[in-house]
């Protein structure tokens, strides 16, 4: 499957109403996708605390996906996705300062009707993270121990 045997672990935080539905539909429609994304379903992308993303990286994720309903009007809770698009640019800046490559983090919008878009994202993002190699945060900490 890969040249170097590295299989990235990717954590995907998906909102219940749009992107999770898309991921479900992509599965039902048997769209080909690699098995590297562990999906965590949350009720709204506005529920995704920045700490979730950092914790995923700290505990071994090589990449993180955050995806919810399209703004402005798709959010099941009216404006939960507004919280997302206000926070995520700052999370990007934070990750950059931490030295985590920009390509390890995707955030965006996939509606329930966009199953092919989800399948494409999983394929493209997995290859993108695979090309970067492992993040290995715990190893990074251990190597900078003293």
């Amino acid at each position, binding site marked *: 499957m890969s040249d170097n045997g590295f299989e990235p672990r990717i954590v995907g935080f998906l909102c219940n109403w749009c992107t999770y539905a898309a991921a479900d539909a992509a599965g039902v429609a048997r769209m080909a996708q690699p098995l590297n994304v562990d999906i965590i379903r949350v009720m709204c992308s506005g529920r995704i605390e*920045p700490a979730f993303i950092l914790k995923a990286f700290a505990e071994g994720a090589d990449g993180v996906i955050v995806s919810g309903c399209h703004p402005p009007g798709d959010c099941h809770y009216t404006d939960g996705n*507004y919280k997302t698009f206000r*926070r995520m640019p700052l999370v990007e*800046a934070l990750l950059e300062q931490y030295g985590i490559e920009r390509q390890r983090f995707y955030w965006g919008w996939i509606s329930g009707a966009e199953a092919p878009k989800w399948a494409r994202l999983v394929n493209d993002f997995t290859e993108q993270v695979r090309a970067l190699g492992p993040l290995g945060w715990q190893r990074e900490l251990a190597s900078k121990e003293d």
Partner: protein
Amino acid sequence: MADTSNGKLRLGLYWAASCGGCDIAIVELREKILELDAAADILFWPVALDFKYKDVEAMPDGHIEVCLFNGSIRTSENEHLAHLLRQKSKVLVAFGSCAHEGCIPGLANLFDRESIFDRVYHETPSTDNPEGHVPHTSYQMPEGEVTLPSFYNTVKPLNQVVEVDYYVPGCPPQAPQIWAVIETILSGQLPPRGSVVGATEKTVCDECQHKREEKHITKFYRPHEIIPDPGRCLFDQGIICAGPATRGGCGALCPSVNMPCRGCYGPPPHVIDQGAALLSAVASVVDADTEEEAARIVGEIVDPIGTFYRFGLPASLLHRAKLEARD
């Protein structure tokens, strides 16, 4: 809990990588320090009294009843003393923000030893070091070998090196809170192990007297860029205030003089990452209805780690920045 022959509490105080402010905070007890002296025998306090490490090494294990350890772990000497004092103390307290969560010295975790040495010994405008000397852990002099402790790549809070019984937050801990902690210790009624003491269970906002309204922030200001309206919530005025993500107990000292809270009391209970919590609070109240507008407004925040993790980077989920491999 005092069970010495003279009935006094056997107390130790130490400073690792710190500025000395935590020791000053103890002196800030003022006349109460006489009460402390009446109640406790100070067995070790390098900043104030002439003790040697060998005095501590000669003590039986657990001889010090309570050790207030301030400062983070930055050098092999800091770490050695952390292990030694853990062994010699019944109760080890991480005293102050450095020992609690790394504090300002912990911002060095954005760099490593090599880049810090480069900066300090070669690059700063005030450096006068024509021969390019940098510290070595060992050097051969005609008289024999002289040694220095080694300087670590990563700053750690005390609990990443040894087990810690209690935490007293603050940069520095406020004197009334220190006294309350000492009274608790003297009473022998200790809270559950691992507790944060000398602070509240709520946030700084809970103690702050400023008037809060609904937040609609279209521009963030750094403290020197604006003269805030007195009496109005600083955060409402676009000044990033760490109050919503910081444990109370200081009495909201900084906001009371119109300086934003910087977060020195650490995260409130149940918050696993203070910086992420503050980032979330700050970004959520940005008054932007499009992605571009939101990105523009939050993009003006200079130095997100330095702003959101000013006191807690080593204790955060990621602990430090990853660095590009150097050749």
